[in-house]
């Protein structure tokens, strides 16, 4: 087995008296599509926030490609190559849909005042390339006809897709997706999964995603990690996890159709 791309060790994160994440440990293998599942309140989103640097863990360590990131600022972590989406999509409403995607271009010289003044040629060239890529991504998520519209006019599902395009624009090696399929049509969802599989094959991109649609989880992922009450209670291949008694217990009462 390869060294994990993401290593979470004994991470604890509490809000007042509530331990949202309680000594959680998990590994994400490079090139995998790993699903993080669990009932509401299991601590999945909190764990995402800790890994991406938006929340500080009380205890524990997080390593990305062997580098400790649990004390790094969110933008540093993103630059290392770990980029996330949010459960509630964060469309930048008064920017155009295209600008939303362009914003994610990394290492753009035009994002520095010095670059604008000293290297206008390079800025233009980079911007042209970024536009091509952004247009491709908008076509992928079927938002190309909205490219010039304000992102604020998009529906909730469309905003999810915009987030997806944006995160791919950033060109990360590990993508954290928080409920990427919520509000997205099943047909388009399937296409996005296929695209993710393609990116994994071509670029070795790794995906970790939270999802409630368990059919989707079983179909799309090659590893599943289950959380309950802040702890990681099981992990393994989808078929093994499905058979795990602790997982069934955690989901009892929520009509599990695994």
């Amino acid at each position: 087995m390869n060294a994990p791309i993401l290593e979470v060790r004994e991470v604890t994160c509490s809000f007042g008296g509530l331990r949202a994440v309680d000594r959680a440990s998990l590994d994400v293998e490079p090139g995998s599509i790993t699903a993080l599942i669990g009932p509401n309140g299991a601590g999945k989103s909190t764990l995402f926030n800790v890994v991406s640097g938006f929340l500080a863990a009380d205890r524990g360590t997080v390593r990305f490609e062997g580098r400790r990131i649990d004390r790094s600022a969110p933008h540093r972590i993103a630059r290392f190559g770990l980029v996330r989406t949010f459960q509630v999509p964060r469309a930048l409403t008064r920017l155009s849909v295209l600008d939303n995607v362009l914003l994610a271009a990394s290492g753009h010289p035009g994002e520095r005042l010095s670059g604008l003044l000293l290297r206008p040629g390079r800025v233009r060239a980079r911007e042209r390339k970024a536009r091509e890529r952004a247009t491709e991504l908008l076509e992928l998520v079927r938002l190309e006809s909205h490219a010039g519209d304000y992102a604020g006019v998009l529906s909730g599902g469309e905003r999810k897709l915009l987030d997806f395009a944006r995160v791919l624009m950033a060109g990360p090696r590990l993508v954290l997706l928080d409920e990427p399929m919520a509000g997205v049509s099943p047909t388009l969802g399937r296409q996005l999964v296929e695209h993710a599989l393609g990116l994994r094959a071509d670029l070795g991109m790794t995906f970790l995603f939270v999802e409630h649609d368990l059919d989707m989880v079983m179909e799309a992922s090659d590893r599943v990690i289950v959380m309950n009450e802040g702890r990681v209670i099981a992990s393994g291949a989808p078929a093994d996890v499905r058979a795990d008694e602790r997982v069934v217990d955690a989901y009892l009462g929520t009509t599990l159709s695994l």
Partner: protein
Amino acid sequence: MSTIASFGFWSFVGIVAGIYTLFALGVQVQFGFAGLLNFGHVAFMGIGAYTMAILVVKEDLNMWVAAGCGVALAMLAGVLLGLPTLRLRADYFAITTIAFSEILRYVATNEDRLTGGSQGTINLAGIGRTAQYDGAWQSFLGKVERGLNVSGDVATLILVWSVAALAVGAVSLVMRTPWGRVLKAIREDEDAVASLGKNVFAYKLQALAVGAALGAVAGLFYAWQFSFFSPDDFAPLLTFFAWMIVILGGLGRAWTVPVGAIVFGVIFAGTRFFDFPPFSLLDSTERAYVRLIVIGLVIIGLMLFRPQGIFGSREEMVLE
């Protein structure tokens, strides 16, 4: 001839509107684009004006060099203000900025050896010796007057508005670059921007510094236009004039600022001299207060019927 019809009066209004354009453009960059609630903007104007005057009078520095120092110091002040405060939530940041501008005003009032104290720049060279910092400006203005064959007021008007137009153009251009895109994105949702690898804090600092530079340039013209100023000229009211201008014109666009500044200037300076009914029923002191009421009513009316400002975008206003 009544004041309202005199050319001298309107060119004065035009000069003030030009200065306000530069000043309010700083607020547009900081709030309209980057979303920073800076309520202490007037401090940058004061730093620009005072630095220039002090360096000329006390250090005998070339006035243009001193003016550059004023702008640079204002930018530095913007960065120093931002370093400890930009991590605060928007409303707390706003409170600290207003405190910042008031602290500077009080320091300027009390440090008479540095600033001339409450008497203003007339005391810069010491009591009894009238200080003058704008000699170089007056001779430059004279050249422009002769060169273009215009009066002094018109020459000032041309100079102020040339610089203002340049600044508005430059800000418009820069806001269309990837740098401006990041700034506007921060206004929308800074967490989303950070999650894409942008250093939000650094961009906010830059926005503060750019806005501060514009405020300082406005301060220079203020100092040159009035030949004399005191700390009380930089009271918080002036900051709120800039905010009124930005709201009047419309948020998030550079070219709406001169529109707001002209409308504001005409109402503000004009109402004082409106000598037709119903204004003629009041004496000029009373009219000086009426203009504040008029501005207030205009803004209330605008918020009711045109919340996006005169030229702001309604479409942007209603997005969530």
